[in-house]
Structures are given as C-alpha cells and as structure tokens.
C-alpha cells in the first residue's frame, strides 16, 4: 500500500528530528493530502507522489519548524537583551570596585564559565538548523542564566548595605530575565 507506506516513510524521516506531537500532526496532514488526491481519481502511487510533492520534503518542513521554534526565538531575544543586563551588572561591579571584593578565585572562574557557556549555548540555539539540539541548548542556557541572575540578586540582597546605586537597575533587569527564561523554558519544553 503506497499511501500508508509513504506516510510511514515520511514519519520516519521527521520523527528523529521533531517532537512526537509535531510528527503526529504532520502525519495526519500528509494522510489528508494523500486522501484528497485519491478522491480526485489518482491511483495510489500517483496520489502518494503528489501528496509528498505538495506537502514539501521532510528537510524543508523540519527546517521551517526549526526557524519558527520557541527555542530559537527565546535564544535570539536573550542574545539581544543580554548586553543590557550585562551592562547593568557591569556598572554595579565598577561602582562597587568589585576587584577589591574578597571573592574566591574559584567562584570568579565558575561565574565566568557559566556566563560564557550560556552565551555559547544561546548562539547554538539561535543558529543551529536542527530542532532537538537547539531545544536542548536553549533550555540549558535559560537554566544557566536564571541561576546566575538568582545568585546575583541573592548576593546583593545579603550585601544590601554595601551595594552601589546601579543595583536599582541591575536587580529589576535580572528579575525580568528570570521571568522571561522561566516562561521560555516552559514554552521550549512543551511536548
């Protein structure tokens, strides 16, 4: 039976690359396309070929899903807004003469690696033309940024009396980013 076989082939081609719910939806749409060609009088082989031609090759459909994915949108927004949040905290560090703070070297290295890792993961999520890896990268980056923002807010809360004035900008900026990354993770991980 060329029709169902075709649909299964198509499903197999996209199932490793897209979430199961999207695969089910595409398979239903392809089956409807195939049925409509049968209704027009095409034989099963011709109907199967016409259905795939009309639906679009699996690679094209996967690429279109990836471009429109919540992971890519979240990553791009975070990459665009990241410099603003970073500038706010940079002002805090400069105004507070952060180089004189007794912060252990390991903590500085951990902070720097988390930030650099998050930026790399966001770039991967924003540019990689593959849906699942982009989703994983965006989720990890969101979690890392949320943890960093939470840690920064906790630190200035504990040290409030020493915190310089720019924290009045930096804390709301980080709080807004925590809210965004939390919403983004829910959207990105939706099955």
């Amino acid at each position, binding site marked *: 039976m060329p029709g169902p076989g075709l649909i299964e082939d198509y499903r197999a081609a996209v199932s490793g690359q897209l979430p199961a*719910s*999207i695969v*089910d*939806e*595409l*398979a*239903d*749409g*392809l*089956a*409807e*396309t195939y049925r*409509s060609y049968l209704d027009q009088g095409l034989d099963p082989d011709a109907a199967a070929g016409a259905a795939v031609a*009309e*639906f*679009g090759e699996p690679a*094209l*459909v996967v690429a*279109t*899903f990836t*471009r*429109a*994915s*919540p992971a890519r*949108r979240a990553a791009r927004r975070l990459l665009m807004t990241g410099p603003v949040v970073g500038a706010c905290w940079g002002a805090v560090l400069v105004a507070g003469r952060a180089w004189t703070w007794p912060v252990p070297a390991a903590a500085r290295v951990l902070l720097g690696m988390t930030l650099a890792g998050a930026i790399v993961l966001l770039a991967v999520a924003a540019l990689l033309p593959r849906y699942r890896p982009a989703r994983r990268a965006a989720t990890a980056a969101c979690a890392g940024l949320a943890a960093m923002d939470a840690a920064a807010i906790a630190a200035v809360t504990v040290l409030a009396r020493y915190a310089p004035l720019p924290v009045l900008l930096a804390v709301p900026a980080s709080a807004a980013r925590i809210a965004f990354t939390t919403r983004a993770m829910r*959207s990105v991980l939706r099955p």
Partner: protein
Amino acid sequence: MRAEELKGHLDALLLAALEGGPRHGYAVMEALRQATDGRLDLPTGTIYPALHRLADAGLISGSWSVVAGRRRRVYQLTGAGRRALAGKRADWRDFAAVISAALEGSPCPDPA
C-alpha cells in the same frame, strides 16, 4: 503566488482561514486554496510551523482529537487572534490603497 511573495502576510492569511471556525492544518491550507482559486503555491507542510508560532503568541489555540485512528490537532481563533486579524485587515487595506495609488494612479486614501 509563491511562498517568498507571501512573506509578512502568512499570519494574516492563516488567521483569516480560521475565522470561519476551527480547522486542522490541512483544512486551513484547503480553505486558503479555495479562497484564492488555487493560486497560493505554498508547501502544505510549511504552514504547520506558522500555526505553532501563532499558537505560542496566543492568537490561536489548538486541541487534540483522534480521527480515523490518527491524532489530529485542530486550531481556532482566540479573542486576541480576532483582534489581530481585524488590525491586519485594516493595515492591508491601507497598504494596498497606497501602493495602488503609486502604481496605477488611483486616488490615494486620506491618512486616518
């Protein structure tokens, strides 16, 4: 009319196709074809990502059912989607009137 020519207008077309009631992805494409006498040349598979994007934006909502043993997602307009469609229609009328005035010498509409 090819996909690249529809850039920027696809969202409005999909919202309009759902204005008459809930539809699944293929039915949305069929509605667009019927409305345009088959002149839209868009790979059917590529409208699904656009539908997901509209659902993420809260302009449409999706619900699942089982038809002929297959899972089917059916979309319908939300209140925000109806408002967005009305806005896009108004924008399109303005845009079309201005471009027509430039290309064909028809009267240019007064700015609202």
